[in-house]
């Protein structure tokens, strides 16, 4: 556990990605199996330990510490594992040499009650840094600034191989990744995906920056709409059809009407949208389906979904990812007329005449309906590779909407914002709602978009302007106006104000602006475009 704790500590405080990766490489080279695989799976978020959940940790902590003091501490620290590790008293019975693999194998066979006792025992035996590492391992959400991609890059670097090789077999392996390490160490053959319905890592787009526009040769890019749905991958293999989310989660059960056997075998990439190809539904409708693990027959008929396809990775089990986009598009168009011809699949059209002027216009027009978020630009010669590849795919979103809102409530944040008041509920004046024009109604919750320096100032503002406490929530004096950017406004029955904003974030703090001059509900309703 000590080497894992040291690794987490180093990763957390390492200033740059390359330094983090170097720490990972050192760890991979110097740690035995299966401990290294388990540790890495904790970092990629793939480790799941049955029976040990946040509730159990909290219960154990309550037995060691006054619950009131624990809750106040948790509210401040913003992380259950860290709060518990810090608050747990040091004992004199410390033991060294507890291994991750021992911990995992013991917990695998333990029932819930035994698991609680085991965890307590380990916490008593470990110093604070290792208590933290243990609890992080058990509860997940490590927050040390390492992505799954970085772990795979470090693996590739450790063994001097191309990261794409690792990416391709990643969906086939499970923690502690012995199949992978045996192959890397030359003790076994490379794991093979052929013909199996497994997830293939997706290609992602960079946001197009203003500064890049001048240098773009738009003629060499294929333009498409950026659909406002959920990115999915459909894999058809000898063992059936599966649907995967962007992060590789199998969501076939959620969308049985799409995960139906096909005679064609291969992998396609596209957007899941509500409605049907002739009439697209809203993102809100799609959300109803996304939130339901097993939809009822009624729900499937009332809120149908379909897949708008834009790329192909495997065609009849032939890997076409290395071919240029233009070629893949031809293959895809041909298959959409034959093997992929169904009512729940349709093709994302290419936008003709994608000149800068046209793109600019389209970007602004696509606000209507909120079904399109902007435009996609894909280099016609690009191969299909995992991750964000420089210069290959760009997303160019429409400009966000903005409104001046008043801070109503604040709560302490988690992760990098822990211990600061960083989660804000913002309100607009009641004019246009069924409430009094003189009241402020919540319309957004925002916790990003400010700088570290601004965060400190906001935290100070909250601490000095508290008027009431509701558990961890603080009501503040209604004096501070913030300019908030958001993607869209929708009617919402769940909110008192009758509306909800999508992806609200801070744009500017208006220390100068009186609350009276903030926007009203009717201003926001005017921005609804669906």
């Amino acid at each position, binding site marked *: 556990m000590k080497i894992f704790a040291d690794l987490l500590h180093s990763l957390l*405080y390492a200033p740059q990605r390359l330094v983090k990766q170097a720490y990972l490489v050192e760890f991979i080279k110097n740690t035995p199996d299966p401990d290294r695989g388990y540790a890495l799976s904790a970092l990629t978020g793939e480790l799941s330990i049955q029976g040990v959940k946040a509730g159990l940790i909290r219960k154990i902590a309550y037995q060691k510490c*006054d619950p*009131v*003091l624990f809750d*106040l501490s948790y509210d401040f620290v913003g992380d259950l594992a860290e709060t518990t590790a*810090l608050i747990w008293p040091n004992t004199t019975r410390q033991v060294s040499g507890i291994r991750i693999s021992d911990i995992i194998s013991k917990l695998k066979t333990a029932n819930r009650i035994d698991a609680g006792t085991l965890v307590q025992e380990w916490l008593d035996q470990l110093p604070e840094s290792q208590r933290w590492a243990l609890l992080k391992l058990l509860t997940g959400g490590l927050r040390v600034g390492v992505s799954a991609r970085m772990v795979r890059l470090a693996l590739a670097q450790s063994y001097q191989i191309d990261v794409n090789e690792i990416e391709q077999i990643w969906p086939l392996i499970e923690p502690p990744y012995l199949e992978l390490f045996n192959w890397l160490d030359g003790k076994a053959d490379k794991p093979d995906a052929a013909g199996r319905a497994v997830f293939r890592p997706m290609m992602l787009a960079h946001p197009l920056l203003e500064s890049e526009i001048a240098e773009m040769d738009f003629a060499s890019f294929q333009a498409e709409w950026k659909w406002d749905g959920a990115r999915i991958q459909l894999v058809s293999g000898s063992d059936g059809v599966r649907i995967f989310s962007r992060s590789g989660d199998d969501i076939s059960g959620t969308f049985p009407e799409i995960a139906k056997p096909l005679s064609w075998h291969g992998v396609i990439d596209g957007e899941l949208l509500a409605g049907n190809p002739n009439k697209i539904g809203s993102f809100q409708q799609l959300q109803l389906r996304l939130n339901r693990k097993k939809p009822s027959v009624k729900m499937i008929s009332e809120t149908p979904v379909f897949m708008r396809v834009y790329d192909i990775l495997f065609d009849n089990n032939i890997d076409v990812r290395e071919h240029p986009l233009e070629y893949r598009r031809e293959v895809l168009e041909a298959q959409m007329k034959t093997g992929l011809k169904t009512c729940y699949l349709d093709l994302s059209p290419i936008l003709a005449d994608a000149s800068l002027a046209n793109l600019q216009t389209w970007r602004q027009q696509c606000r209507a309906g909120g079904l399109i978020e902007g435009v996609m630009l894909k280099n016609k010669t690009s191969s299909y590779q995992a991750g964000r590849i420089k210069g290959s795919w760009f997303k160019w979103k429409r400009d966000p909407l903005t409104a001046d809102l008043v801070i109503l409530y604040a709560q302490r944040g988690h992760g990098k914002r822990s211990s600061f008041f960083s989660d804000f509920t913002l309100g607009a004046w009641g004019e246009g709602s069924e409430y009094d024009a003189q009241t402020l109604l919540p319309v957004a919750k925002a916790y990003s978009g400010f700088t570290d320096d601004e965060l400190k100032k906001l935290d100070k503002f909250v601490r000095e302007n508290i008027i009431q406490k509701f558990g961890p929530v603080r009501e503040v004096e209604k004096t501070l106006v913030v300019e908030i950017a958001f993607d869209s406004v929708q009617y919402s029955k769940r909110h008192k104000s009758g509306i909800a904003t999508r992806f609200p974030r801070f744009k500017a703090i208006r220390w100068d602006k009186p609350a009276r001059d903030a926007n009203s509900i009717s201003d926001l309703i005017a921005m609804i475009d669906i």
Partner: protein
Amino acid sequence: MIDTSWLKISKSGLYIVPAKAHIDPVRSVNTAIITHGHADHARAGHKHVIATPQTLEIMAVRYGANFAEQKTAVKYNQKIQLAGVNLTLIPAGHVLGSAQIAMEYADTKIIAAGDYKRKSDPTCAPFQVEKCDVFITEATFGLPVFSHPTPEAEIQKLLEVQQLFPERSVIIGAYSLGKAQRIIALLRAAGYEDTIFIHGAMKKLCELYVSFGIELGSLQTTPIGRIDNQQISLANKFILAPPSAMGTKWAQRLCDPLIVSASGWMQVRQRAKQGGVELPLVISDHADWNDILRTIKEVEASEVWVTHGREDAIIHACTQMGLAAKALSLIGYEDESE
């Protein structure tokens, strides 16, 4: 029966009614009793300032020799009277010259501890326990997650990274008054004799500490503002700078700086991580959770008032101990800077 009616909370801070004097007022007043020299407690613009000789000197460095029309220097444990109120300044162990204000009036003794700590500090007089009826405490680190390790152990980490990265300059963010001098003194006590570099903003305060007999060894002001865009090689050296200077051009000009921050906040990992800190040191000039509770017990007060910080938890703990406790919710005092 204790009588506390003579000590009130005003917009400016704690106010001793019969003496017409404020403690650490946050706005200009006629008579101010100052616990210590940190800027949020010792503000400029008061007519008459009562404080320890060290605190008065610190204020003179900060605001110029004529920072008040009248200055009354009161040594530790020297008794004075102000309109019938007996006043004593007692060491608080926070920074050089820091004092608790002990007040006696109407058969009631109240101590306003100001900011204080109980851990060792070679640069100031240690906290003195004095029994009282009402103890007014701060609660900057008033949560049971805060348990500060010994500063000596933390300083060892500094010496270790210096050995580990001989090609990098180790730049330590520390408050110019108190924390900086404490770290220098701790480094000296750990046997480090080489010249330590300091940011210009710390020079006068370091000189002041030396004039009060605190050994800081060989110090040199880091050359700044002289050469444009040229990196200064202070590889393998320790450089102290106020936290505010860490993100500036000043810091960028040092070669491959390793950012260290010394503060009680460094215990909360994600918060430590925020400022781009590579090595967090848990060295605080405030009492941690256990030390606050220990102090409350030792002074044997029957009532505890909490000025600023995480007051909820301290009040809960006091209630559990059977003590009356209340939050004063004073504003205008900063948490320990990072």
